[in-house]
């Protein structure tokens, strides 16, 4: 039976985003084109932020998972194209919510707007303030909720 890109995409659902467990790289929209020629597989890995330190680890993990299925893969990191939040699957968004992140209400291209319309993921209140647009990773911003008092993180995509 010959390999198909769909099959490979299915296998790659076993590779989690190292910084957001429970969400796979496929659901994060980080897997670009997949091509298969003879038995050689080529997978595009599209980083969310260019400086994401997990890229090397992901390259290795993708190679390992495909090797377990007997496929030889070359994983190419793509910088010449932007990752877009629109590339995420509904499962990806649901996984982020489950992990406790607030999600942007609207995918504005203006960072001010994106950071202004946020609700607390714990109690739903909109009485929140931005503590810092920069958080523990490039894709997180830190907020505080004035209703329930909790600190929380917004999933902050490149805009």
């Amino acid at each position, binding site marked *: 039976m010959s390999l198909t890109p769909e099959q490979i995409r299915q296998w790659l659902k076993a590779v989690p985003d190292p910084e957001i467990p429970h969400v796979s790289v496929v659901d994060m929209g980080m897997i670009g084109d997949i091509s298969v020629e003879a038995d050689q597989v080529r997978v595009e890995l599209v980083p969310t*932020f*260019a*400086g*994401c*330190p997990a890229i090397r680890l992901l390259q290795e993990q993708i190679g390992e998972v495909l090797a377990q299925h007997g496929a030889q893969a070359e994983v190419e*990191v793509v*910088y*010449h*194209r*932007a*990752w877009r939040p629109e590339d995420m699957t509904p499962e990806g968004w649901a996984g982020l919510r489950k992990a406790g992140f607030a999600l942007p209400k609207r995918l504005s*291209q*203006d*960072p*001010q707007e994106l950071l202004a319309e946020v609700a607390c993921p714990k109690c739903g209140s909109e009485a929140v303030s931005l*503590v*810092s*647009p*920069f*958080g*523990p990773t*490039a894709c997180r911003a*830190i907020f505080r909720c004035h209703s329930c008092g909790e600190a929380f993180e917004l999933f*902050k995509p*490149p*805009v």
Partner: protein
Amino acid sequence: MIEALESLVLSLADDELIMGHRLAEWIGLGPILEEDIAFASIAQDETGHAQAYYQLLTDLGLETPDRYAFHRPAERFRCAHLVELPNFDYDYGLALVRHFLYDAAEQVRLQALRAGSYDPLAGLAERLLREEKYHWMHATTWLRQLGRSTEEAHLRLRSAMQQLWPYAWMLFEPLPHEEEMVEAGWIPPSTQLRERWLELITPLLREVELEQPEPSAESLLPLQGARAGLRSPYFDALLSELTEVAASEPDAEW
């Protein structure tokens, strides 16, 4: 053509790498915890951008990102002297003004590259702009905040402008092989980019009543040649720190 491309890409990449290093030096020293995190996060982005630029050259058969970053003699770097300047006594006003002037230049350069004719660079510029918007927002927010606060804050911003202005001006020193780049439509001439940069920053500086000093010939003269390999007196110490670990085991696989 490859020389022109390397000249352009290294000027962008080396600015990012060295700016990233200087910002990372703030880790643990920020005036408030959130600024510590902000500079660390921006530093990580800039370093990642440098890597992506170097990779573009690697894909053309030139050196690998690690070779460019860690195994290159000082005179082969192409950064502007603005990013080489040390953090001196860690004056936040100075760091903020550098961040503002530099990130404004990044906005202008990336927008020009995005509209340029060299597809790999145009695509990369589109990607990087989506991250850089947060940097620009950070710089302008703090400039407005501090520019309208105390006399002490304004004094520090004014003195930073005086000190940094010639360096910022020289971000737009024409690049070696620039004619070729312009003719190919990759990027407009440096003088034109400087005009766009002035258009971007002038209204913001007016808003907080910060004057733009006149760049005198004698302040600019010692800064000439950065894009052709002339390094500032601060560069050697920076490079030896940046490359210390890599140099300890040059053939190591990381």
